[in-house]
């Protein structure tokens, strides 16, 4: 069991990726085709937050359980922590793009029923659609 415990942090990252990556295919996003744009979005922010993280850990604001992370460390931080600053922004961008895809679908597609009243000018309600990528039309 102790060896499984080392996966605890990595499991969280896998969970986020498993939740976010299907958005790309389901909503036919073009995020991964724009690798330079993705680098521009993630690298500066990750650098800033790693710097914050290094200062905060050296100041003792937080620390990581060696039993629940892999042994690899870089400047004292678990490697999972560096991955966090790539995975979480990526998941955020995928979610943001998925929400926009839902919104543009609504704007461009006519209501399915011809007699349906005109759609109210509301924004996307993606908590049901983007949050459950296996449901709905596709």
């Amino acid at each position, binding site marked *: 069991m102790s060896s499984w415990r080392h996966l*605890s*942090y990595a499991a*969280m990252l896998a*969970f*986020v990726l498993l*939740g976010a990556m299907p958005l790309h295919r389901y909503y036919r996003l073009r995020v991964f085709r*724009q690798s*330079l*744009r*993705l680098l*521009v*979005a*993630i690298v*500066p*922010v990750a650098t*800033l*937050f790693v710097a*914050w993280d290094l*200062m*905060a850990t050296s*100041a*003792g*604001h*937080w*620390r*990581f*359980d060696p039993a*629940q*992370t892999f042994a690899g460390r870089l400047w004292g931080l678990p490697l999972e922590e560096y991955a966090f*600053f790539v995975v*979480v*922004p*990526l*998941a*955020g*961008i995928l*979610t*943001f793009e*998925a*929400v*926009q895809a839902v*919104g543009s679908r609504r704007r461009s597609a006519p209501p399915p029923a011809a007699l349906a009243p005109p759609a109210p000018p509301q*924004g*996307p*309600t*993606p*908590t049901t659609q*983007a*949050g459950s990528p296996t449901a709905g039309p596709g």
Partner: protein
Amino acid sequence: MISYTVAAGIAVVVAVVTDLFILRTALVRTRAWWAAYSIVVVFQLVTNGWLTGRGIVRYDADAIIGSGRIVLLGDGRIAYAPVEDLAFGFALVLLSCGLWVWAGAKAGAAHPRKG
């Protein structure tokens, strides 16, 4: 060094100011951002709760609002994690999405493309 509470507050201000006045992406004025964030924050509560509830990350009581007790709700914590983590996550994702939109607008201006 300043506490995590102060640092997290600064991060939110920096992220919003960057969005509004530096990148001029103004995501915080769009429905799309808040719709996306409303999804992201649910996952942040789950993942922060996992990291903190299991003690993968442990916080110094002097750096946060709460007393350092790991509780589900209250004493400066939501879903086990310090409320500061929500500010941290908000700033992280807003800055990333802001730069993403900014870089996309730059690319779009350089290479205009339909759609």
